[in-house]
């Protein structure tokens, strides 16, 4: 069974549309949560992360994510997407005291039409 699940494989939006990408995980205990992005031809880079504290996390480029512990979810949002947001987005989890290894979801390809 998938331990980190991203709800959508491919999302197509028009510019200025709002974005929400779903991510659920199946681990109990303390987890750290991440969203990574891979723009075409570029490295994976960190968008945002949650370790503790305020469950609403703000990242780079206007992205934010909300950790809802009761739902084991960490959904990514952006109020208004741009063509330059076209990329593949990965949700990832690391479990406390396991050396930081990341467990990834299967990725969501976002295509933004100009």
């Amino acid at each position: 069974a998938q331990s980190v699940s991203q709800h959508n494989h491919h999302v197509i939006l028009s510019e200025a549309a709002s974005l929400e990408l779903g991510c659920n995980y199946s681990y109990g205990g303390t987890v750290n949560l991440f969203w990574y992005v891979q723009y075409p031809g570029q490295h994976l880079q960190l968008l945002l992360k949650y370790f503790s504290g305020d469950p609403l996390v703000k990242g780079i480029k206007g992205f934010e994510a909300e950790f809802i512990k009761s739902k084991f979810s960490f959904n990514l949002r952006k109020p208004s997407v741009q063509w330059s947001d076209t990329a593949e987005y990965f949700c990832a989890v690391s479990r406390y005291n396991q050396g930081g290894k990341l467990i990834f979801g299967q990725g969501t390809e976002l295509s933004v039409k100009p």
Partner: protein
Amino acid sequence: EAGVTQFPSHSVIEKGQTVTLRCDPISGHDNLYWYRRVMGKEIKFLLHFVKESKQDESGMPNNRFLAERTGGTYSTLKVQPAELEDSGVYFCASSQGAGRSLSSYNEQFFGPGTRLTVL
């Protein structure tokens, strides 16, 4: 500051051959991770070095894969002999800090990946 680099960027080999992938982490990063993405699947953890020591190799598929990090700097991942199912993109990542708990809190910086095709 130079990022994580990987060599080669692409490798095409025949089944049964040997391939060695190299990763140079960011200078000073004690943690080095290898991940793999097989086409159409999620990125999967392979192993984790802390300096020159293997901290966790639970994700290594089988004994055809051998990873080393001599001197705690760059790392190599050798596949010998390669099989068709080894095709995919191999990512390396590095992060600061050491220890099983502290490592969890440090951002991992990824390299560009090596695309391996086994024919």
